[in-house]
């Protein structure tokens, strides 16, 4: 049920400034979502978002075996975005992540703001950005919708993981050259599970209730702000992560200047701020490689689906 490397950051892992700032950012997004989600699903129906959140929570416990005891499972941000729209998805993921922290201790209380940011805000915005981009590129055919579902799932996980690892690095908990390749690499793989489950779910919904998915493509609510936020998150995190992991000292320097490193007050830790990683000489390469492998897999799935789609259409 658990990811081998947790996406839910526990208490004590983030410095107070990082945790505080992300609390603020998340709260702003959640307040906007409370205003906007009413338009997506009808104001009086808003409390029912809680029931959908319960379903996503339960859905996160679904898994399928990959190999050797590892399993693929669902986070659900992308699925929620595809099904009910971005702002409602923020509220769904907020409820899920908050209950996980408050009842099941998955993720801390002080770090809840950061976890909300990664999973509800970044996950949602990236999924929305990727899905609307792919819809624009590939149109509204069956294979395009399935491809969109996979891509939105994969990217939402991968980018959210990069955000989490940058936060850890900024807090001085885990140096960037360790956190980013580890989190990024693992979640590039976990994202495949997410993408495939999202794809499977969307394909079932298309078969049984096509209006749910097709209605979405007309985009009754224009969410250009979310689109731009998604673009920024994706671009910044994709560019920053390899940079940060190749120059962890640089990140630490920035964090120190901004006063983010309250946590790492150990003197010897400051005197020797550079790290060695035996075995892996070039960490930027490692991250880029992980990203590239992920992108290759996405492309492979695209071609495969495209072929299948063409075959089906020819029949």
């Amino acid at each position, binding site marked *: 049920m658990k990811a081998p490397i947790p996406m839910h950051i*526990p*208490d*004590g*892992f983030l410095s*107070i400034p990082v945790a505080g700032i992300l609390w603020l950012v998340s709260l702003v997004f*959640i*307040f906007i979502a409370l205003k906007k989600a009413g338009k997506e699903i009808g*104001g*009086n*129906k808003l*409390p*029912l978002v*809680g*029931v959908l959140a*319960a*379903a*996503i*929570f*339960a*859905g996160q*416990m*679904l898994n*399928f*075996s990959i*190999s050797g005891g*590892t*399993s*693929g499972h669902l986070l659900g941000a992308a*699925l929620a975005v595809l*099904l009910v729209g971005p702002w409602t998805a923020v*509220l769904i993921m907020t*409820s*899920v992540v908050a*209950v996980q922290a*408050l*009842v*099941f*201790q998955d993720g*801390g*209380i*002080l770090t809840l703001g950061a976890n909300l940011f990664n999973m509800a805000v970044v996950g949602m915005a990236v999924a929305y950005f990727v899905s609307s981009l792919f819809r624009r590129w590939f149109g509204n055919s069956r294979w395009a919708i399935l491809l969109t579902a996979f891509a939105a799932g994969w990217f939402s996980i991968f980018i959210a993981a990069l955000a989490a690892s940058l936060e850890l690095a900024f807090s001085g908990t885990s*140096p960037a050259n*360790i956190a980013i390749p580890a989190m990024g690499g693992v979640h590039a793989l976990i994202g495949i599970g997410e993408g*495939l*489950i999202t794809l*499977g779910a969307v*394909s*079932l919904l298309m078969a049984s209730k096509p209006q749910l998915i097709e209605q979405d493509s007309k985009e009754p609510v224009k969410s250009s702000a979310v689109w731009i936020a998604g673009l920024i998150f994706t671009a910044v995190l994709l560019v920053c992560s390899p940079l940060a992991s190749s120059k962890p000292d640089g990140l630490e320097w920035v964090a120190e200047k901004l006063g983010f490193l*309250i*946590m790492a*007050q*150990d003197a*010897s*830790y400051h005197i*020797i701020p*550079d*790290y*060695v*990683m*035996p075995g892996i000489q070039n960490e930027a390469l490692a991250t880029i490689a992980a990203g590239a492998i992920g992108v290759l897999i996405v492309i492979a799935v695209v071609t495969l689906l495209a072929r299948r789609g063409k075959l089906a259409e020819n029949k």
Partner: protein
Amino acid sequence: MPTGIVQRASYLRGSSILHRCDARIKIALLISFLLTAAFLPIGAWVVYALMGGLLLVAMLASELPVSVLLQRALVLEIPILLVLLPQLFLQKGNFVVLTVIKGFQISFSMSSLVRITSLLIRSYLSLGFTVLITAVTRFEDLLAAMRACGLPRMLASIFALMWRYLFVLIEEMERMTQARASRSAVPVNSGMRAGGSFGWRAQVTGGMAGALLLRTLERSERIYQAMLARGYDGEVRLGHASEPLTWGQKAAMLLMLLMGAALVLIANGMNGA
């Protein structure tokens, strides 16, 4: 295949002083404990011990089995350990050579050892206290307290409806998983070979997630109709409003924060010395 998630939900029935305490106070207590732990410097062993003592006293006051609480926190600590442990060997510092095996030098740095041990202790303290507070507070009370602390009403309604249907939908999911296990794709750790190809298993699981969502959408439509039938007008009523806090309670909350701040100051002073 019960997932055990229901057992992991933290509330444990009881009637101790902690159970009866106002949830707003417990939230204040939790937040001041967590903030204190977060602000403590690396290697403040004495203060860690003090905090541990406080945690233990609080756990005893809850009249719940302390071993169960400690164990819960320990289980939650494992992933943290897995993340931190590798850093012991990867970071530069004053390396202590542990042993040499066939020419490979195994060494770790003393400063990382201090840092990682501190992080582990602090996160264990935080986890222990969170486990304790959520074990003595029902989610409904927690929600009412958060509402009193400024959680928007709509968000509180969403949380409340989620909580009401969470276990219903988890059971629904468990029935689906059982149906799958009895037919085809055996889940992980069952000792049997999973059926079908990788892609097929993924698609089946996706189909289950989709079906669960579809059923939930239909269910929420029924819930909405039922709410309308009972006179729902856009406002979910969440039970009684909490009484205003007494001065004594407010003073107690302030005292907790001050105690935390004092501990942080002491710890910093000791480290500086």
